[in-house]
C-alpha cells in the first residue's frame, strides 16, 4: 500500500544519494589536487555549491514532511537523521573546497607530501566512501571502521601538529597544518554521520558523544 508519505521519502533518498556521490567526488578531487598539485578548485566549488543547494532542498523537504505527515517510528528517525546527514554532506563539500583553496593559495605543495599525510588522506577517502555507503544501505557495521579511521586521523593530527611547530619549511608546515585540520573536521563529521545512521537503525542517540569527550581527555 503506497502511503502519502512514500513519494516524498523516495525523493529524499534520491537527493541524498546524489549528494553522497558528489561528496565522494569532491573530496577525492580536493585531496588529489593537494597531493598532486592539480588545480581542481572550480570543479570542487561547483560540486560544493550543488551540495549546498541540495542541503537546502533536503531541509525544505524534511520539514514539509513533518508538517504534512507527522511521521513516526522508522520514517521519523530517517527524516531526523537525514537533516543531520545532509548537513554533514554540506560540510564535506565545504571542507573539500577549503582544501582546494589551500592548494590554490600555497601553490603546488605536492613536494610537501609525506607518508603520514598519504596515509591520512587515504583513510579519509575510505571513510567518506564507507559513510555514504553505510547510509545508502543502512549498514551500521561500517560504523566501526569509520570510527577506526577517525581515530587514526585524530592521532596523526595530534602527532603532527607539535612537529609542524618545529618545522623549518613554513610553507609546507602551514599547508599541512591546514590540511590536517580539515581532515580532522571531516573525520568528526563522518562520525556524527555514522551516529545519525545508527539512530535510524537502532533508535539510540549519539553513542559517540561520550567517546569523543573521553578520548580528548585521556590522550
Amino acid at each position, binding site marked *: *500500500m503506497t*502511503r502519502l*508519505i512514500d513519494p516524498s521519502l523516495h525523493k529524499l533518498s534520491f537527493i541524498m544519494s546524489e549528494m553522497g556521490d558528489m561528496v565522494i567526488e569532491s573530496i577525492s578531487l580536493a585531496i588529489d589536487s593537494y597531493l598532486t598539485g592539480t588545480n581542481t578548485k572550480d570543479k570542487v566549488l561547483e560540486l560544493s555549491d550543488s551540495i549546498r543547494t541540495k542541503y537546502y532542498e533536503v531541509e525544505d523537504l524534511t520539514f514539509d514532511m513533518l508538517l504534512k505527515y*507527522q*511521521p*513516526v*517510528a*522508522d*520514517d*521519523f*528517525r530517517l527524516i531526523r537523521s537525514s537533516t543531520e546527514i545532509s548537513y554533514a554532506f554540506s560540510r564535506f563539500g565545504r571542507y573539500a573546497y577549503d582544501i582546494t583553496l589551500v592548494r590554490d593559495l600555497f601553490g603546488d605543495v605536492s613536494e610537501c607530501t609525506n607518508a603520514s599525510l598519504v596515509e591520512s588522506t587515504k583513510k579519509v577517502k575510505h571513510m567518506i566512501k564507507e559513510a555514504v555507503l553505510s547510509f545508502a544501505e543502512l549498514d551500521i557495521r561500517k560504523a566501526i571502521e569509520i570510527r577506526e579511521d577517525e581515530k587514526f586521523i585524530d592521532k596523526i593530527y595530534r602527532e603532527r601538529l607539535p612537529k609542524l611547530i618545529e618545522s623549518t619549511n613554513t610553507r609546507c608546515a602551514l599547508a599541512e597544518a591546514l590540511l590536517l585540520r580539515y581532515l580532522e573536521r571531516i573525520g568528526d563529521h563522518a562520525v556524527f554521520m555514522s551516529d545519525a545512521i545508527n539512530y535510524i537503525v*537502532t*533508535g*539510540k*542517540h549519539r553513542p559517540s558523544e561520550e567517546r569523543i569527550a573521553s578520548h580528548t581527555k585521556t590522550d
Partner: protein
Amino acid sequence: MTALSTKPTDMETSSIDTKSIESKYKMIAENVTVSYDGIDAVKNVTMKFKEKSVTALIGPSGCGKTTFLRCLNRMHDMTKNAKVTGKVMIDDIDLYSKDIDPIYHRRKVGMVFQKPNPFPTMSIFDNVTAGLRLNGVRDKRILDEIVEDSLKMAYLWDEVKNDLKKSAIELSGGQQQRLCIARALAIQPEVLLMDEPASALDPIATQKIEETITELKKDYAIIIVTHNMQQAIRVSDYTGFMYLGDLIEFRETKKLFTDPKDELTAKYVQGHFG
C-alpha cells in the same frame, strides 16, 4: 501544553515495559480475557497504569482496545454473553472479586464515551450532579460546590456559569463532551476512562479536550482509547498497542512512536495497515 517528554530510559529489552520508577500504580489489570460467545475479543492482557499519568490505547478497529477499556469499570456486566476473567485492581482491591459491591467501586472509575451523551431531559446542573443526586446526595451547598469544581476542571465553567439551568442538549458538541467529563468527575473518581473522547468533535473542540486531559492528569490516572496517533503522542505518557485482542507493545509514548520494538507496532504506526 507540554511537548513530548524526553526521559531517557534505555532499560527495555522486551516489548512490554512494566518497570516502575518512582510513582506507584493506580490501577493494574492482570490477565484480563474477554470472550463473547466463545470468541476471545481480549486475550490475556496485563497492563499497569500509574497514578497522575495518561495512558493511550491504540490499534486498528476491532483490536479489542475499547472492549478492554470497558473491563476496567465492569461495563461488560451490562452486556449479555460477555465473559470476563482476570483481575482489575484499584489500590489493591480487585473490582471483579466476588466480595465487593461492584456499584460502589465502579464509582472510583469515571467514564467518558465516544459520542457525547449528556442526559437529554436534564439541565447542565442536573447532568453534572446526576451521579450524586440520583444516589441520594441532597445537600444543595455540596452540590453547588461540586458542580463548580467539576465544571472548572473540565474547562467549561466560564462558558456556562451564568446559565446552569439551560438544557444540556443546547450546548455544542465540544461543550457537551466537556459536560460529560464534568459529570464523570463529579462522582470523585480516581481513574478516568475515555473512549475516543474527541473523535466526534471538530478540531478546535478536540484541542480543548486535549488541554483538559493534560490538566486533569495532575490529579487522575487517565486511560484513553484513541485512533488518532498524533493525539496519543500529544497527550499520553504511556501507550499500549493492541492487535486482534493481544497487547503487542506497551511503553513510554515517545519510545513507542520513535523506536517501536515490535515489527507490527512499527508497521501500524507508520500507516502500513489499519
